[in-house]
């Protein structure tokens, strides 16, 4: 029992200061006309750099000043591993369109074509859970004026996207 509780050490003794609150934002917008899900994820550069380095890429620098090819494939791999969409338990692949640097954040663009996919659809977001125990990932679903949000934490990271999200008449 006493051993179990130690898991919370990280959040307990966090130096309450500047950078110790880790949040990423993912917005998922359904575009009925194109039958597509537009996925935009924003993460902090320093966190992402830390993750990639921890995972064995010691020299990675996320900055536009260095060659991007290798970085791009690392980033794409990471997003494919940590943002997953499933239909009836089967992973469906999205197109990874690319990323941009913006001040201290990185924005990644992904798109999921829904013409051959029928909901129910689930989304899992485990970004940085392998690196920062206190990481929280916010997911916004958007359809026209409709909005719904989820907060992914390491103990709860899979969410069902409600079917009416895909209903164009709403």
């Amino acid at each position, binding site marked *: 029992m006493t051993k179990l509780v130690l898991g919370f050490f990280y959040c307990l*003794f966090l130096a309450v200061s500047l950078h*110790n609150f880790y949040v990423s934002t993912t917005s998922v917008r359904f575009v009925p006309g194109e039958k597509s899900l537009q996925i935009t994820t924003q993460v902090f550069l320093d966190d992402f750099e830390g993750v990639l380095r921890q995972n064995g890429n010691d020299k990675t620098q996320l900055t536009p000043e260095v060659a991007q090819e290798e970085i791009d494939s690392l980033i794409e791999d990471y997003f494919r591993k940590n943002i997953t969409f499933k239909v009836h338990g089967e992973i469906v692949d999205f197109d990874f369109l690319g990323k941009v640097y913006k001040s201290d954040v990185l924005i990644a663009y992904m798109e999921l074509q829904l013409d051959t996919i029928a909901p129910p659809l689930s989304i899992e977001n485990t970004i940085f859970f392998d690196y920062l*125990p206190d990481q929280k990932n916010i997911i916004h679903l958007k359809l026209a004026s409709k909005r719904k949000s989820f907060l992914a934490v390491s103990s709860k990271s899979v969410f069902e996207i409600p079917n009416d999200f895909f209903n164009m008449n709403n």
Partner: protein
Amino acid sequence: MKIIEFKLLFFSFLFLQFSLSVQAQSDSLSTAGHSNNNKFKQLKDELATPNSYRTASGAPGRDYYQQKVDYVMDIELDDENQKIYGEEEITYTNNSPDDLSYLWVQLDQNIRKKDAPALEKNGEGAEPILRVETFVNTFFKEPFDGGFNINWVKDANGTPLKHTINMTMMRVDLPQPLKSGDQFKFSIKWWYNVNNHVENRARSGYEYFPKDGNRAYVIAQFFPRLAVYNDVEGWQNHQFWGNGEFALNFGDYTVRLTVPADHVVEATGQLQNPKDVLSREEFKRYRQAQTSFDKPVIIVSEEEAIEREKSVSKKKKTWEFKAKNVRDFGFASSRKFIWEMMAVKLGGKNVMAVSLYPKEGNPLWEEYSTKAVVQTLKTYSHHTFDYPYPKAVSVHAKNQGMEYPMICWNYGRPDEDGSYSNSVKFGMISVIIHEIGHNFFPMIVNSDERQWGWMDEGLDTFMQYLAEQEFGKTHPSAIEGLEKYPSRRGEPKKIVNYMSGDQSFIAPIMSNPENVYQLGPNAYGKPATALNILRETVMGRDLFDHAFKTYSQRWMFKHPTPADFFRTMEDASAVDLDWFWRGWFYTTDFVDIGVKEVKQFFVSNEPGKEVLEMLKNYGMTQADLPPVVFTMVEDNEDFKLEYKSGSPVDHSQDLKSYIEENASEKDSSIKIPKNFYEITFEKPGGLVMPLIVDFSYADGSKERVRYPVQAWRKNDHQMKKVIATDKEIIGIEVDPDQETADVDLSNNSWPKTEEMSEFDQFKAKMKN
């Protein structure tokens, strides 16, 4: 006379009509009543009633008091066994009007006891994914044996004092009640095991460097500290649960730190015996640094530090520090430390800007640490008061960012080969500015962090933004290739993601730090942004800066509450801000304001149907009216095409006569505009804000209009504004510079521009 009376009657009739029509829209009688929920209602119900301790203007009152607690401490750091021993003599001065029968002492280290309740404060269950170290620490290892071991508590005569420990608080019972105005001296002897702060991400502890076998200690919350007793909380003995930081008394400290003889030490306070602890050469450099204003003097160089790492001294040395009027004491000690300092002139006084770091911090730390300290002292002093302490020290500690009086721990470590990315560099400069900045809030403007995280974090993060932007200007080479310093927090649009998020995971700023979901945006980002918006958009820089400085100076070396801040900002500026505090600090509402509809209207010679109807209701005809002007929108069924042509004066006989009479008096102030518009603005968001609008005209010109926030006070959902102009309006944009943190920009323009989303823009760019 008669005409005037008639006019009055007519206008009151118009108003009556208006209010009737508003009422008609709700189901009048069946609607339930309500209390005052106007967004502009004053905060009298939320704020404590002013009294002689704290005035209605937000200043300390004539009976304001605070306790004074002085410490004399002998501390020994056992590097070999990672233990720390202390004996402290406490002098407690009861300045309160009350007699006290016991004192509460804070034992923050007890949060690391094996059986600390804080370990069980969460209830989120098993986690499907964990870092390897976390998994091993959690399930495979014995828990760390931390927490205070109290040897004894004695009074000045050596008689043991009865004491009772409740988690992180210890009650010391006094033999006789301590009378108002009296002093009580007592001593505590204690020890504890020092934790590895890197393993459990603590605020205090050591980092172990396996390559050379040495440790670097950053030690804080390490001695039993008196809790605050005051007029707002009584004893502030709210337990330490980990997130809500500290509430502490001012006092004078004399601390003798005994450490291995080859350690370099920095601490809160002025070093009393540099000759005893420094080598002849080091002492020479130390003296030289006191007047080095252009660049730091290296007291211990990287080469010297590397040499020290190679052996372990069995001898001890005692460093003595004295500090006046501080609320806490922290220190850093290691044989690995490189040490540099330079002098900064602030208000006629010299302050030492100091950096202390292991070689692992270089080359980043020798380049930027002291520069960031200097910039912080300058910018913050300019906006508050001249930094009153003799020094400010930035210590490098892995993963850390934590503040104490005159000293703080900061992260930012290059790769082993010395290379570092921009994010490591800016992360390091930002954290140094933030933590050094904490000297102002809460070390000197001593708010209660245990209750109100935002009072120091929010104010400090706001000031940090200003200091970072200054740093970018004074060190252009540091931000090469960038337009300005890349501040993470402060700009309004950066808080939009948080404020537009799921309401179940957002708490008002006025919440205890333990009870919020996202402490970062909650206590740091949102209040900092709110203050930035106050400064740039609501109050303007002059009024804001004066009020902010007034607050800082009123509460310098005192204990302010949120009400003292809210009241002072209004008191010193004559800007009613209750609506702002109420919305931004007491609710989770967000800003969303847009333009809904634009209607052009024209002067007409004949009244429209609705005017005739109105007159009929009052038993009047057109003939009973004084000279009036009728107007009509284009889609009115009585509208005639001719109203659109020529001057408006041509379509109203009354108007024409009036103009002709006045023109004969050569009234040059009369100009006849060609176009009249009624514009409807909507406010789907809960927050009220000033309405900032850019009008674009057909001739290519643009005009910025700022409507006061008070325009929302009678209708919280929409407002209609009339524009009379010679020019033709072709475009309207609300909040054009994105200065209000508007969460939805899709309703901000007229005509609605179907702007390509960022997503589509990116996709299009990738295709090309």
